[in-house]
């Protein structure tokens, strides 16, 4: 290709290649046909044909979260773009770097209600980190490289580039380089050293400290997780992770208290409540974590490290906010700690740990087992036991199964746990698993699913089969939208309005119909065999695990309650009625 003969579409491909993109998740249509034509003529980029544009974005998210790279999406104008909106919002809420290229009608038709025209930049403005409409071919290469820069820099997020068809067909020159930054957008990476020293002062004096860390550690990169482990070890303090942060600290370590929040562990939430110093690193005081705000960790001083200044003092007022990248700030914290040879007050730390061990003894994740019916927790315990020695990546859908997966699957390393945390998108897990499997062909990638959620993007079984991706869908089939049923049981007098999963397909036959393999377990004694067979099958598999339809997910902080007002099991429910104020919360 000589420079002069490049079209806008060729330039798009060239930019992607220069950005080290190896795979694009997409779906064609009239407005992007020129890009598909350019794709056809090259063999650097792999295109994965999804079966729905929402799934294209979730796949790109799965790719991004399991690799740390930017995920790339290509969809057509109008319905292609609007179908992508849920995925974009999901990526925004969970801070996942995605670049989504959308086709657009030709510039002279914009605003005329042309066929498959949608105001894509208008629609996606609130659900992207940034977006662009390319109106001039001369701007195209710069905008594309800028889009990657914006998506991955600072707090990552989705960026849409809307590409009118005439621009894609116009002749242009490659007038930009992949190293381009935005002209003014420069997120602050280094934390203010004075504040870091102040943080160390506070940490040195703490008596009941706890690290509360989140997805920011994972987004910052593997080095951040290493530094976090190093710092946590240096201090000897307890640590809890948010749903988004699981894997940032090894779950098997004694200092790890498990996840916190609505379905977090008793020891994590009680420690948060009793703490005198919260060290929040890369988490955002989300409402699923804090519970009732005016009762949230009432006696603690709070330190908050975040790359996004707007996360600091948004929900919870903190005593010390440090804006910066987690890895940079942790590195400086460790430096200051070592330079000062800080020694923590072992006497107080010992009694703090003594208290925490008491809470731990409650064994809050214990459940009533059964010989006749498969308990969902049991199925996940077995799944964990039989997969933990492999390179395993877990994705989830949304519901009880997601929370049980967070509780029972343990993660030693980052980038192995992909779940829709902020938006809570049913239908996330299967396409995310596909994206992760594309990036890690040899890994065991399992979508822990619910029978309701899986139907939201079940068509992606075709994608998995087309590309021979051996993803596993592990359905905890309770024949209910279990999480909805649980809330109806606890909050709405057991009136199970529309939460029964009626007319379910036969998932074994369904897998077969797509060209995959279907397996089923109905008794506890079958669980291990089915999991082993699933692992041994080198194809896409759906496992229909028929579990107890009545099981509820505990522990639980009911909405409107505080961390020390957890429901530990069915027995607690009657004793602690939920307030009217709590009822109004989501």
């Amino acid at each position, binding site marked *: 290709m000589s420079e002069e003969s490049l079209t806008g579409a060729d330039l798009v491909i060239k930019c992607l290649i220069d950005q080290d993109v190896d795979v694009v998740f997409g779906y064609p249509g009239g407005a992007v046909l020129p890009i598909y034509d350019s794709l056809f003529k090259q063999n650097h980029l792999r295109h994965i044909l999804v079966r729905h544009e929402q799934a294209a974005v979730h796949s790109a998210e799965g790719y991004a979260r399991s690799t740390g790279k930017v995920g790339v999406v290509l969809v057509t104008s109008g319905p292609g773009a609007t179908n992508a909106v849920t995925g974009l919002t999901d990526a925004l809420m969970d801070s996942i770097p995605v670049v989504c290229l959308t086709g657009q009608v030709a510039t002279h038709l914009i605003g005329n209600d042309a066929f498959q025209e949608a105001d894509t930049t208008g629609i996606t403005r609130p659900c992207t*980190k940034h*977006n662009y409409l390319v*109106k001039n071919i001369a701007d195209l290469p710069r905008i594309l490289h800028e889009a990657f820069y914006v998506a991955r820099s600072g707090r990552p997020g989705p960026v849409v580039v809307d590409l009118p068809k005439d621009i894609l067909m116009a002749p242009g020159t490659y007038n930009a380089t992949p190293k381009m930054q935005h*002209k*003014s957008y420069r997120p602050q990476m280094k934390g203010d050293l004075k504040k870091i020293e102040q943080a160390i002062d506070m940490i040195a004096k703490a008596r009941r400290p706890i690290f509360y860390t989140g997805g920011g550690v994972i987004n910052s990169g593997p080095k951040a997780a290493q530094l976090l482990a190093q710092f946590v070890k240096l201090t000897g303090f307890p640590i809890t992770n948010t749903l988004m942060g699981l894997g940032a600290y090894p779950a098997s370590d004694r200092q790890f208290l498990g996840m916190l929040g609505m379905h977090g562990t008793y020891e994590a939430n009680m420690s948060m409540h009793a703490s005198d110093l919260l060290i929040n690193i890369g988490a955002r005081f989300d409402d699923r974590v804090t519970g009732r705000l005016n009762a949230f960790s009432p006696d603690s001083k709070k330190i908050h490290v975040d790359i*996004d200044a*707007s996360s600091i*003092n948004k929900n919870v007022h903190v005593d010390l906010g440090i804006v910066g990248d987690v890895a940079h700030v942790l590195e400086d914290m460790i430096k200051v700690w070592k330079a000062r040879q800080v020694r923590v007050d072992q006497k107080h730390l010992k009694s703090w740990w003594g208290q925490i061990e008491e809470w731990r003894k409650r064994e809050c994740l214990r459940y009533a087992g059964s010989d006749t019916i498969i308990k969902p927790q049991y199925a996940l315990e077995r799944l964990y036991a039989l997969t933990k020695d492999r390179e395993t990546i877990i994705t989830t859908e949304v519901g009880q199964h997601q929370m049980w997966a967070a509780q029972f699957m343990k993660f030693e390393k980052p980038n192995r746990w992909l779940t829709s945390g902020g938006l809570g998108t049913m239908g996330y897990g299967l396409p995310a698993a596909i994206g992760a499997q594309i990036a890690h062909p040899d890994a065991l990638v399992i979508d822990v699913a619910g029978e309701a959620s899986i139907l939201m993007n079940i068509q992606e079984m075709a994608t998995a089969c087309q590309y021979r991706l051996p993803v596993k869908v592990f359905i905890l089939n309770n024949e209910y939208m279990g999480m909805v049923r649980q809330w109806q049981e606890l909050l709405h007098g057991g009136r199970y309005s529309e939460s029964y999963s009626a007319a379910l397909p036969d998932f074994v036959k369904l897998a077969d119909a797509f060209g995959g393999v279907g397996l089923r377990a109905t008794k506890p004694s079958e669980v291990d065999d089915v999991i082993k067979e699933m692992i041994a099958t080198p194809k896409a598999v759906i496992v229909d695990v028929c579990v107890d339809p009545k099981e509820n997910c505990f522990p639980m902080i009911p909405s409107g309650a505080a961390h020390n007002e957890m429901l530990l099991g069915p027995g607690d429910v009657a004793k602690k009625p939920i307030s009217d104020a709590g009822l109004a919360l989501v």
Partner: protein
Amino acid sequence: MSEQKSERHTIAVLVDNEAGILARVTGLFSGRGYNIESLTVAEVDAKQALSRITVVTSGTPMVIEQIKAQMDRLVPVHKTSDLTVEGPHIERELALIKVQGTGEKRVESLRIADIFRAKVVDSTNTSFVFETTGSTAKINAFIKLMEPLGLADVCRTGVVAISRGPAGL
């Protein structure tokens, strides 16, 4: 958390003058439930294609801090400055005010306009258009006095503001 009182703040924002920037800013305010009392925008540096937005908003100190931080994280925003907390500053509004009437009322409106140093920029036998600049309070007062005298139409720019002293934004 102690109950916080709502405060009025004037915020200046320097942004790239690009398509959709105003929608981005106003969308941020509506999407997050912040108030806009007034908002003005115009290009201030053609060479660098920069526009300056002045927004008057109200909220608790925590909300005001959020507004500033949320604006700062918009990619095309170069700088956000809360003029209200950053020290003394000047606020001005321009208003065009049409008053209809004849006889005694017409004369009275002219007299008041004189006191307020409003200029007559259009006149017919039965109407005036006054132009006046000043603080929001002054313009409010002027409009109030015009009400009984045949106030027919009001148009205001909203607040523009700049800090006192030598330092720029």
